[in-house]
């Protein structure tokens, strides 16, 4: 391959477990880095995404900043991949979706026992939470999904190498997992 593919990654309302799973492909990272180079990613600490071939997004959309980052990825990435349960269906953060956001914040910061002078954080630097947590595909078009909580390193490896080889990515029994 003459030119390396540029890949960006980010974690929105996720736990970085999917990124840990990316790192879990271990020594296969070396052959992978023959084929790709990282743009914006927690691995490079580049803060904004330039034009990329592939974007990997972990986590759902739970606040205003997540929306901006996701739009930046969609604008810059030719192929956008939702990685992990939270990106695909909201996952654990979305388990608050049937609760009222105001009462969640009140309970956590004001009425829980043991809180001294509690107040709901209101620093202007903090992104405002959305009233519901959304899977990525409810906000932008997503091209591919890698399920799992997190997807195994083998699943990520199989998916990316299929994609880079120009094949339709398939996981198959043992690699496709929702848990």
């Amino acid at each position, binding site marked *: 391959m003459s030119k390396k593919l540029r890949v960006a990654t980010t974690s929105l309302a996720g736990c970085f477990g999917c990124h840990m799973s990316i790192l879990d492909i271990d020594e296969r990272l070396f052959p992978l880095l023959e084929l790709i180079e990282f743009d914006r990613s927690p691995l490079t600490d580049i803060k904004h995404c330039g034009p990329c071939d592939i974007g990997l997004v972990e986590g759902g959309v739970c606040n205003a900043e997540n929306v901006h980052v996701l739009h930046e990825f969609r604008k810059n990435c030719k192929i956008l991949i939702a990685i992990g349960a939270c990106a695909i*269906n909201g*996952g*654990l953060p*979305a388990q608050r*979706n049937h609760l009222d956001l105001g009462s969640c914040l009140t309970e956590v910061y004001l009425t829980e026992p043991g809180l001294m002078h509690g107040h709901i954080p209101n620093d202007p630097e903090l992104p405002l939470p959305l009233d519901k947590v959304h*899977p990525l595909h409810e906000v932008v078009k997503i091209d591919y999904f890698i399920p799992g909580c997190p997807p195994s390193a083998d699943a990520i490896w199989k998916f990316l190498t299929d994609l880079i080889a120009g094949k339709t990515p398939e996981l198959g029994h043992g690699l*496709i997992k*929702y*848990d």
Partner: protein
Amino acid sequence: MKETFLLDGSTIPFEPGQTVIQAALAAGHYIPHLCYHPEFKPHGSCKLCTVKINGRTVASCTMPAEAGLQVESEIEELNALRRSLVQMLFAEGNHFCPSCEKSGNCLLQALGYDLEVHATGFRHLYPDRPLDASHPDILLDFNRCILCELCVRASSEVDGKNVFALSGRGITKHLIVNAESGKLSDTNISLTDKAMQVCPVGVILPKRVGFSVPIGERRYDQRPISAQALDDAPRQTDAGGNCAACEGTP
């Protein structure tokens, strides 16, 4: 000489009175299904077992086998529809597999795996249906119900207890407990009931055994559902116990 029909080009023998799916499974040919259970009268509601017969789509669990039928099942057109059905079931309930005790033993999940469903693609409903933990030995999580009525059928037909029923219509249709209080503790259900064994998803759960088998070592972690459904189905064997119709299958 038994009468036969054709399924994806294979000759399937059948007994009078058998449905298409019964004959297919007995002959070692898998047709995806969810609400069909070999021990119960067919329900025909999940539509996962839909096949094409002479150009028309029908549920193979309710379609009586007839000589000379031309049945198509393992075709991309049908599998794409089956994928959509699984996706809609996932979007309609709260199927958060990472926190579900049934994960790895769940038929809906296993079908998703087998059909390579990577995501739901639909807008999730995130239902808010309160749990029923009133019974000392049994937990109900209604947020995972797919309305297959297997528990309803098992409780009335086998257990003779009528513990469960469906109520409402359309999108408001939901599983209820047949007690004045609506609570499971006010019924005579017990852990040994058939109704405890048939839930394909994680609605009816025995307490205190949730993770005795670790994730990763569960039923559908080992082998895909398409292989295991054939083990469960009554097979047609000759006097020597050999399965004559099952060429190429163990």
